């Protein structure tokens, strides 16, 4: 085993901590390695494998990239991919027991299914909003008594419209929006989110403005429920482990990680699916096992898990996140050319 290779490629998991956490692959870091940025070499080693893609869940592997860049994608997913969310609430009447400000806050957190790429950011100080930057919804509900429910005790039988859910939110097209969008393009993601509960005589009458924003400004704009990655675990058995020891080793890891093979009538431990391991470090608690296993994670193998709130499909979110980082690079490249052509005056 080449020690230098291990330092470069693996993050050690030790009994009481982690080792070799930082990337060391920089020019002048290790003898015999160039380590300067090489696009061709990067493209050769880079890989993406999609493991699972559902309506709002995505799991994929990103291999051959540094944590600095992978982490940038994760952070952008959480805080910088724009979405539409309710920002202004105009309350005309609210006689429910939920206070105006609490109601407004609850409304803000409702995920809105609308493609933010079709909208602009609203200009600062603009209260009215235009068709390019605002989606308007209306919520008008009045609770009434159910006429033929004398002996009932269940509120569902006693009252009509007593549960205000996102189902009641009606989209009000502004300007030419009715021609551009269909009824189904702009709506709350879920129709069953409970906003407030009413009793007969109480009513809610309000208008909402959705605007484009990013999670850095307010968490309601975050397009993901979670976006995280973990490094692929790597488990190496230093010697043959059999029988009672092997069975105990198997129990120390998550189910499926260690398999027992029958070799000459003995049960022999084999690492079958290191991906399933949670890196619990349980085996370090067994004095006779702790020196038999080399435990680490692969430094450049990221297992991403992205769970969308439903506003956009998760694979679109990842693409948008990458584009946001590219956008940052381009913005600053343009500014740098500006600065270079008119350098700041030096102090004498």
């Amino acid at each position, binding site marked *: 085993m080449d020690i230098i290779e291990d330092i470069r490629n693996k993050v050690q998991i030790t009994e009481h901590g982690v080792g070799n956490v930082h*990337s060391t692959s*920089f*020019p*002048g870091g290790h003898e015999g390695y*160039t*380590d*300067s*940025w090489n*696009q061709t070499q*990067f493209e050769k080693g*880079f*890989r*993406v*494998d*999609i493991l699972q*893609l559902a309506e709002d869940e995505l799991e*994929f592997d*990103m291999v051959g*990239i*540094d944590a*600095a*860049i992978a*982490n*940038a*994608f994760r*952070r*952008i997913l959480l*805080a*910088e991919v724009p979405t539409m969310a309710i*920002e202004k609430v105009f309350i005309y009447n609210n006689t429910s027991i939920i206070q105006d400000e609490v109601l407004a806050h609850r409304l803000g957190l409702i995920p809105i299914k609308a493609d933010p790429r079709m909208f602009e*950011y*609203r*200009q*600062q100080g603009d209260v009215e909003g235009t068709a390019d930057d605002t989606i308007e919804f209306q919520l008008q509900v009045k609770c009434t008594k159910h006429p033929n429910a004398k002996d009932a005790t269940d509120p569902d039988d006693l009252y009509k419209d007593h549960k205000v859910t996102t189902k009641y939110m009606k989209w009000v097209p502004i300007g030419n929006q009715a021609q551009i969008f269909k009824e189904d393009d702009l709506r709350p993601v879920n129709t069953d989110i409970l906003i407030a509960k009413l009793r007969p005589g109480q009513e809610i009458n309000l208008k909402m403005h959705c*605007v484009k*924003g*990013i999670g*850095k*400004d307010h968490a309601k704009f975050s397009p993901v429920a979670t976006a995280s990655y973990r490094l692929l675990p790597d488990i190496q058995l230093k010697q043959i482990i059999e029988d009672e020891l092997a069975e105990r080793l198997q129990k120390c890891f998550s189910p499926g990680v260690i398999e027992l093979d029958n070799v000459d009538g003995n049960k022999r431990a084999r690492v079958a699916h290191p991906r399933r391991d949670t890196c619990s470090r349980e085996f370090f608690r067994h004095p006779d096992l702790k020196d038999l296993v080399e435990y680490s994670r692969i430094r450049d193998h990221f297992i991403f898990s992205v769970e969308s709130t439903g506003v956009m499909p998760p*694979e679109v979110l990842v*693409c948008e996140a*990458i*584009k946001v*980082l*590219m956008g*940052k*690079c*381009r*913005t*600053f*490249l343009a*500014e*740098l*050319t500006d*600065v*270079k052509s008119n*350098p*700041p005056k*030096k*102090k004498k």
Partner: protein
Amino acid sequence: MDQQDTSTVKRLEIIESHRDDDTCQTFVFHDEDHTLGNALAYMVLKNPDVQFAGYSVPHPSENRINLRIQTNGAQATDVLQKGLTDLNKCCEHVLKTFETRAKEYKRSQKRNIPQDIEMQLDT
């Protein structure tokens, strides 16, 4: 909400130094954080001309980062430019790879669904 309109606002600033030295400079990136800071510092460090590169968030409630670059003779602005270009190219490849793989996955899923139904019908 008010952070996004940056078309007219300068977001990159070079801190003036008393010494007339173009190889050592500190750049201020307004309205940026660890997201760009760490990725860019990594890319700049990958350049063999660079002696030192590092970033800091000077204060948690100020929305900016400082990126310090010291080189072995190259202009710091050139080094930064290379870093940004490399990072952009890297992202381009990641995006291209991801898009292709996502398309491939969706296509393979479509092919598998009828098979699954067949399997269910068999049993």
